[in-house]
């Protein structure tokens, strides 16, 4: 017995086994995979799921169907992992239908077929293993973009080879006896059964997925992808209006560009964005346009107008209104008082969030002048004042304060936003420009839970001279709608920062524009002349529409323009008498009477704005004359042509009812020919983005698949695919 005790003691040292922490990456994959599997198992898929289980329980002896069914069961999750893993596997987003389709099949599968399948599986695995050994480093799935299929997320090449080959051969043979065992064991507990099944499956389904992918993505129709959690305001596209009945169009300007960076980020990750994430005006306004600038602050901005042929519709024209804000000379620059309110919740602990913010911060500090003050308040994690108001000349202090920030779990109840305003108010000086800049990935637990209360609070602070801007980071948790709303109420901008370059653009290049407001509550009203314009449609600005009567109402809030900002608005107009009208003339209405051509103007532009501290608006007007019309698109300015290409891209991307007639290639060509000097390469990047979109959602004409090839007739997924749509769809 002493002997036994000794062994006992020795064995108890097993308790000291140390395990390392799981890697965050592996955990994330596992969680994602679990969620995909969970979704697949929910009501929509309830029927198939029950089938699988039934086959497990009842048809266990059949063996073959089982294997297939299990492979199908897990195909979906694995496919998702792959898509999530290697971003370059574009065009094949997770596809539930694939799974369902193969589930119906297994019953018919005969032995021979299964055998062939098994062989194929084995050889694929071998092939794959070889590929892997040739690829030097593929430890982590995210790292090398070229590893087609990592069997399991974390394996060394050598390991993978051994496992792949063995599981390929052993598995298929072993799977059958196991089924028999199950059958013998009568009704075994379900977990056991499923356990085996899923265990077996991933190894077999991985190559299947690989094949599907290699086949070129023809199997799956792209579906828009939106990481669960990001929220966007839903809106309907502006409709075409009849000039006779609604001659006046009113909207607030919008200088935000968040939509474009968000769209770019999703496309670059190989997904199509949610249609509501595509806001045309923000796409168009992302790019710098070389409009002539006003010469004095008396008229803080200048408008540039042109009418060019519509690239996507030969019968209509585009009225482009470009507005450029005044750039005050450096000497006139007022000292800035900036308070950063930074989200340090646990979710900010991702490379493209807090660490990116930290890296970008140095850029911003470098652009400040010594008299500016910076302070930092954090919330949702390490909460409190991280940096008291500090002169920008003390660069070191500012940078070390931002560097010391770390993401933490969630600590509620700290009144972050009030603290930020308090700190900012304390640092107010004579003639300082005061602003709180909220940086977050979507956690708005800043101390005021109710969004409406929060907006009101921000408005109150705005009225006391402290503006608010919002910087959005990361994906998956982003509340775009609230972000926009807060910034609008705080007379600031909402920007979405997806990479270092974008940080540079937002904080440095446009730093001045984003921080120095030269005019606020800027509203635009256009009245069209029915004698020349029979119909019109405003492209974008859906979320910024104003009632006509609000134009002259100074109480109604609108967008701000910063130093040097450019804003572009585009109307698609139908010249009268071309017969291109979407609306039939009224049978009984007054429109049958041709309006008198009392003037030779196409329309009239009115802009209302307030000085940053003013409460009464001023009015700028300009007639839209016929000499603005260019009949040949080639002779239109590069800015105009480029803006048109962005509009075309956005419309096509969001499956708009208008302007889908252009192919991606045509859009890319249009943009490519209108790059101008493009000093920062934004336009060149845009052309690349069009090409990515083309890969994700190929044009039918390009020989790729479209809804016509889809047996479901495109009923699955909300995408409208490309090209013309079937009648009645």
């Amino acid at each position, binding site marked *: 017995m002493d*002997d*036994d005790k*000794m*062994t*006992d003691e*020795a*064995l*108890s*040292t*097993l*308790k*000291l*086994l*140390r*395990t*390392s*922490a*799981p*890697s965050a990456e*592996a*955990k994330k994959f*596992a*969680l994602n*995979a*679990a*969620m995909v*599997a*969970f*979704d697949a*198992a*929910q*009501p929509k898929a309830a029927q198939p*799921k029950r089938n699988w289980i039934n086959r497990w329980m009842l048809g266990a002896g059949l063996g073959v169907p089982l294997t297939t069914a299990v492979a199908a069961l*897990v195909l979906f*999750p694995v496919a998702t992992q792959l898509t999530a893993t290697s971003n370059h596997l574009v065009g094949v987003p997770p596809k539930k239908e694939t799974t369902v389709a193969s589930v119906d099949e297994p019953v018919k599968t005969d032995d021979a077929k299964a055998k062939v399948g098994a062989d194929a599986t084995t050889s694929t695995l071998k092939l794959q293993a070889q590929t892997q050994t040739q690829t030097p480093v593929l430890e982590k799935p995210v790292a090398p973009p070229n590893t087609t299929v990592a069997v*399991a*997320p*974390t*394996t*060394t090449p050598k*390991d993978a080879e*051994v*496992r792949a080959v*063995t*599981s390929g051969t*052993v*598995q298929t043979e*072993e799977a059958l006896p196991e089924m028999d065992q199950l059958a013998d064991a009568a009704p075994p*507990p*379900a*977990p*056991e059964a*499923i*356990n*085996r099944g*899923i*265990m*077996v499956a*991933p190894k077999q389904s991985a190559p299947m997925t690989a094949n599907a992918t290699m086949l070129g993505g023809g199997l799956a129709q792209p579906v828009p992808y939106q990481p669960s959690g990001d929220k966007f305001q839903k809106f309907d596209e502006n409709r075409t209006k009849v000039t006779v009945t609604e001659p006046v169009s009113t909207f607030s300007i919008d200088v935000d560009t968040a939509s474009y960076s968000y769209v770019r980020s999703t496309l670059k990750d190989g997904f199509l964005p949610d249609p509501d994430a595509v806001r045309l005006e923000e796409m168009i306004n992302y790019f710098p346009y070389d409009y002539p600038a006003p010469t004095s602050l008396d008229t803080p901005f200048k408008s540039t107008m042109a009418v060019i042929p519509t690239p996507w519709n030969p019968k209509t024209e585009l009225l482009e209104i470009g507005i450029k804000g005044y750039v005050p000379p450096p000497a006139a620059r007022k000292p800035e008082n900036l308070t950063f309110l930074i989200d340090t919740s646990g979710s900010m602990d991702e490379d493209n969030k807090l660490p990116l913010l930290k890296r970008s911060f140095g850029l911003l500090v470098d652009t400040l002048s010594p008299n500016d003050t910076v302070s930092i308040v954090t919330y949702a994690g390490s909460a409190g004042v991280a940096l008291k108001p500090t002169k920008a000349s003390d660069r070191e202090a500012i940078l070390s304060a931002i560097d010391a920030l770390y993401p933490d*779990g969630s600590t509620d109840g700290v009144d972050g936003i009030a603290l930020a305003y308090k700190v900012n108010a304390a640092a107010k000086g004579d003639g300082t420009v005061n602003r709180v800049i909220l940086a977050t990935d979507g956690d708005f637990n800043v101390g005021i839970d109710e969004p409406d209360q929060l907006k009101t609070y921000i408005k109150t602070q705005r009225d006391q001279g402290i503006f608010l801007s919002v910087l959005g980071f990361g994906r998956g948790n982003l509340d775009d709608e609230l972000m926009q709303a807060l910034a609008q109420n705080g007379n600031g901008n909402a920007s979405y920062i997806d990479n270092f370059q974008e940080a540079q653009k937002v904080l440095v290049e446009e730093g001045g524009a984003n921080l120095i407001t030269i005019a606020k509550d800027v509203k635009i009203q256009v009245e069209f002349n029915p004698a020349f314009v029979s119909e019109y449609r405003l492209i974008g600005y859906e979320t910024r529409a104003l009632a006509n009567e609000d134009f002259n109402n100074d109480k109604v809030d609108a967008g701000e323009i910063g130093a040097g900002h450019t804003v572009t608005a585009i109307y698609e107009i139908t010249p009268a008498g071309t017969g291109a009208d979407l609306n039939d003339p009224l049978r009984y209405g007054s429109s049958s009477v041709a309006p008198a051509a009392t003037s030779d103007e196409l329309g009239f532009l009115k802009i209302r704005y307030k000085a940053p501290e003013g409460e009464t608006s001023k009015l700028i007007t300009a007639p839209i004359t016929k000499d603005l019309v260019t009949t040949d698109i080639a002779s239109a300015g590069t800015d105009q042509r480029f803006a048109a290409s962005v509009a075309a891209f956005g419309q096509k991307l969001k499956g708009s009812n208008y302007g889908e007639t252009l192919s991606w290639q045509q859009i890319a060509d249009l943009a490519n020919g209108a790059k101008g000097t493009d000093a920062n390469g934004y336009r060149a990047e845009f052309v690349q983005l069009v090409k990515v979109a083309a890969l994700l959602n190929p044009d039918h004409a390009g020989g790729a698949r479209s809804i016509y090839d889809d047996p479901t007739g495109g009923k699955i997924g909300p995408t409208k695919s490309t090209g013309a749509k079937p009648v009645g769809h």
Partner: protein
Amino acid sequence: LTPDVAELPARAAVAASNLSLVSRAKAGDRNAFSQLVENNYDFIFRTACKWTGKKSDAEDIAQEVCIKLATAIQSFDGRSAFTSWLYRVTINMVRDMQRSSTRRDKNVDAFSLVHPEDDPGDQEEATTARELWTAVSELPEKQREAIMLVYAEDMNHAEAAEIMGCKEATVSWHIHEAKKTLRGLL
């Protein structure tokens, strides 16, 4: 989270929250399921880690357990504690993984999870534990499971029996057999 919260109430709280999450997840609540997996991932991983001795294998297993939970959650009937059930699910997965490959035979390179250099504390004992683990990993499946549950996871025979799905006496017998083998090795 404050670190100084007493462990026991914390455990009870975790168990309670697990149960409520399970019932919500069973009803199709996405967030609840997400939370449940998130809460238990580390547990699954660490268990898999101890049993396989390899981080990469443990991550594979943990991932597959997570995927499996999506459907298997429906079969959790609350007769046993959630963690016991999860043990069973995880250990089954380990078993299947090891059965289905020849890895186990090649796996004699011992418990390689924490490099001694990374973990200076209790160096000697940790080394003993690793050596012991290697010996245990060579045992027949059932014996190995019994030993790991009773000694590495510090359970009594009844708890181990619940997880292994056998009688308590069977666990005791496996332990007895395992010790006989180990005695010669240690």
